[in-house]
């Protein structure tokens, strides 16, 4: 009986040892996958036709009347942008606008620009337009609070721009208007990086 028990015990040990060690026969190895998402800050101006346009007041049709500025506007341009802000480096971006150095609006007149709210065709944290501003050679905040987002592209995506050419409201402005002063201006938009 004792011999039988001893043999049985050894046989069980043999089987268990083989099975258990075989079950441990796994091997594991690993490697890294690294994905770098870069910061992105790009914008462009898109149009249904051309990004160049002409603004001019209507000549009076009746002697004694002033120039008519009511049609001196353009709404054909859209501002598109893509932005990724850094989680620690820069939490939001701003777009500013100015007239490129070396050129100015003809005397007696002002050029204004405003942006509509984003068209809603992209995704993310779009910026908020500050409202209508009078353009000058000094950069001014135009759209603020831009997070990680994309507006969609091309025209009819992003923020529609409205340009208005108006008579300067300051006294004596009309007297400064000079038809020889027709000029070309370049409007510069910059997104902060």
């Amino acid at each position: 009986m004792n011999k039988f028990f001893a043999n049985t015990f050894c046989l069980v040990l043999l089987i268990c040892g083989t099975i258990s060690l075989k079950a441990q026969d796994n091997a594991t190895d690993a490697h890294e996958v690294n994905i770098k998402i870069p910061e992105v800050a790009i914008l462009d101006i898109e149009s249904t036709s051309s990004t160049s346009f002409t603004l001019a007041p209507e000549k009076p049709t009746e002697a004694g009347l002033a120039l008519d500025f009511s049609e001196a506007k353009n709404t054909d341009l859209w501002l598109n942008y893509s932005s990724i802000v850094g989680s620690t480096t820069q939490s939001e971006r701003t777009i500013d606008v100015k007239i490129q150095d070396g050129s100015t609006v003809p005397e007696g007149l002002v050029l204004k620009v405003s942006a509509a709210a984003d068209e809603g065709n992209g995704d993310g944290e779009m910026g908020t337009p500050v409202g209508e501003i009078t353009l000058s050679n000094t950069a001014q905040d135009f759209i603020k609070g831009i997070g990680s987002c994309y507006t969609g592209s091309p025209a009819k995506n992003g923020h529609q721009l409205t340009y208005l050419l108006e008579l300067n409201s300051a006294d004596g402005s009309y007297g400064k208007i000079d038809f020889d002063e027709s000029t070309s201006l370049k409007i510069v938009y910059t997104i902060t990086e």
Partner: protein
Amino acid sequence: MIEKFMIIIKWKKAVFQRSFFALIFNFYLIFSLQGQTSMSVNGNWNYTVSPVIEAGNDFSLFYTSAPDQVYLSADKNKAKGNFKWSFSIHKEDVLWDNTMRLFVKRTGNGTNTSNGNGGGLIQGGTAFQEINNTDNFFFSGKKGRVDIPVQYQIQGLSVLIPADNYSTNIVYTLREE
């Protein structure tokens, strides 16, 4: 009382002898017949997302690595007969955004190492499957095989994900079946 004590001693001696031989036999089985399974993973995938070229657009829907971005090997020394094995895969995130989804597939069969002892077999894993944080079956085979090419694909990248260096460890486990 004394007689009984002697019986116990004898019994223990018998058990000891048989246990000793059983252990020796086990070692013989393991090291002489079974051999040691081994695996290797060679390569990494370091990818910088291509910048957005057109303002207003998002990143592309997906990016794919080279077809042979990483090589896997499954082998066993002194393997005789059918050495059946399978690979499983999971990821362990270091810094990861859950909108990013990582996929993997096998793009080739590798090289059979059975040295003329039959052709071996490799099957499964040839369509992209998502790598999760829990272990999932990838593909299986018979007999040793080295240089099995593997390709990755990442989906869900967007400018909505904060700029950063994201990292995850891809863990392969070779199981003998």
